[in-house]
């Protein structure tokens, strides 16, 4: 089994390389449509035309586009994503600082989404063919219609302004000095044994994670419900009934195990989308993650950052897809070699 997973991982990496190459080329091409001159932008407004020209050739901008792209790829391969035009700092460092914050938030949000989605799906299935079904079903459509940033704003109004319960800006209260080991705040505070700081960091993540979790749970609910409905058409369910098993046992031990597989692949896709959702939620909560970095870069037309962050999102999605496939192998006995 381990060998199968290893083979899958190897295959995934081989497939990921051309995808990354195409994505990065597309990124590079799209961003070159911009009518801005990165060289002129990175110099003071008093710079002479000759200085700008010198800067252009220093940044490789005077060469043909394919050559510029290859140059960029060469640098990226050794971890050099260039220098931010706006922050005047190495882009790799900026991404490395913000990425853990976003991963932390997204993972917490995904746990919330999965918990809500799976219980909600079981509930939707449980109330099938009763008077509660249309109500619950309508409820799930209403939930489906509230995107994450609306939840985020709603929570700020509710728990930040009306009933101030939880903080809604940043990652940590100002009185704390942030420990830096792994970059993941929840882990770093635990490493230092600072439970008070852990609680504070967790409180800061609670609202944004809940907003994301709530927004991404209804799709999980509905897919779990419909795959449970499919599974209940199978003969082994009827057989389990004939054997006199309780409905509860049939649902949890027999049906759920099979219905979880399609749900899992949806959750993989959702997890990728969720990373996109962090973008606006981070802005709304002034949460210093990848999304905030991206939006700042977009506003400043900071091309090196946009390229690097775009590529980072792409890598994140590919990693998630691979992880979901590996999980599938573990969970689905039909895919295991005999």
């Amino acid at each position, binding site marked *: 089994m381990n060998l199968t997973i290893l083979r899958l991982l190897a295959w995934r990496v081989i497939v990921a390389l051309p*995808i990354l190459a*195409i*994505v990065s080329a*597309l*990124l590079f091409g*799209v*961003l*070159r*449509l*911009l*009518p801005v001159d990165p060289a002129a932008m990175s110099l003071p407004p008093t710079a002479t035309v000759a200085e700008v020209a010198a800067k252009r050739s220093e940044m490789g901008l005077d060469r043909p586009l394919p050559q510029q792209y290859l140059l960029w790829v060469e640098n990226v391969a050794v971890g050099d994503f260039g220098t931010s035009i706006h922050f005047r700092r190495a882009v790799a460092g900026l991404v490395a600082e913000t990425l853990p914050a976003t991963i932390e938030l997204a993972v917490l949000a995904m746990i919330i989404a999965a918990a809500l989605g799976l219980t909600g799906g079981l509930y939707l299935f449980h109330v099938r063919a009763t008077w509660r079904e249309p109500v619950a079903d309508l409820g799930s*459509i*209403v939930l*489906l*219609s*509230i*995107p994450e*940033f*609306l939840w985020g*704003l*709603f929570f*700020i*109004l509710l728990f*930040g*302004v*009306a009933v101030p319960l939880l903080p809604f800006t940043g990652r940590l209260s100002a009185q704390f000095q942030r420990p830096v080991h792994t970059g993941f705040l929840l882990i770093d505070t635990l490493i230092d044994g600072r439970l008070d700081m852990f609680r504070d960091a967790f409180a800061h993540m609670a609202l944004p994670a809940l907003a994301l979790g709530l927004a991404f749970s209804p799709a999980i609910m509905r897919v779990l419900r419909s795959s449970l409905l499919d599974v209940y058409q199978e003969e082994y369910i009827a057989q389990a009934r004939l054997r006199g098993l309780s409905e509860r046992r049939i649902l949890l031990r027999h049906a759920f195990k099979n219905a979880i597989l399609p749900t899992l692949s949806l959750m993989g*896709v959702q997890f*990728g*989308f*969720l*990373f*996109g*959702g962090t*973008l*606006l939620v981070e*802005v*709304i909560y002034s949460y210093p993650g990848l999304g905030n970095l*991206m*939006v700042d870069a*977009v*506003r400043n*037309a900071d091309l090196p950052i*946009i390229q690097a*962050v*775009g590529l980072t*999102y*792409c890598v994140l*999605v*590919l990693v998630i*897809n691979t992880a979901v496939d590996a999980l599938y192998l573990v969970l689905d006995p039909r895919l295991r070699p005999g």
Partner: protein
Amino acid sequence: MRPLPPWLSSPRVVAGFAIVALIGIAALLAPLVAPNDPQEQNLVSTLLPPAWAPGGAAAFPLGTDSLGRCVLSRLVYGARVAMTVAIFASLGAMLFGAVLAHLAGYCGGAVDWIIGRAVDVWMSFPPVILSLILMVGLGVGLRNVILAIVLVDWTRFCRVLRAEVMVTARRDYVAAARLVGFSHWRILTREILPGTFPLIITLVSLEMGIAVVVEAILSFVGMSVSADQAAWGQMIADARLSLYEAPWNLVFPILAIFLAVLGFNLLGDGLRGTLDVRLVEAR
């Protein structure tokens, strides 16, 4: 009396259609519905509460924003942007995605492989990020927002429809049509398309909701229509800065986005229930 067509007897379809129609009419008749010019600033009466609250003014039914612009008028004109984007972006994404899906599902082989890989590449980006990057390249403006959403969301149609086309193409009546010697074009348009059309309609309706959200996200970060046009996301971004003084200003655009998306989702879900032949047969 003839019985109602099934899609009209679904309360979801009716409710969804009513909500969408209401917003659509408000958008269409914006100059008549809006009490004020959405861009006119009244710097002496900024951040007014709604008319029914103490301190509200009858001239501004839903109050004013930080520049003293009428919130109701901006909502109504924002609906124009939202509805235009919803309609054209979803139709564009549908056309693009459906054509590729039918080609991939019907032709199979190399065509299917190439289209499948293109979808893979596109899907390796969270859609929000991709549309934001496209907007950076294209520049702000209504037409570019629509283009960006089409270029991002065609995959949603392509993925789902391709599977549906493949199922339909294996049906006996399609094989029969082939044996009779119908042209590929005729088989695709007369035999397969009627089978996939209900799903297309449902997907378009759901995509309209998605387009409203994407437009709101883009206009929130200032990458949608230009600043002299009112948009719901922009109103939220503006209201966020005066959160404590005027929480109302945040509530109204939130409600508008929620209602629009709810309307499209109800419509899509109801249509799926009444148009999907297999679901109807199973009853």
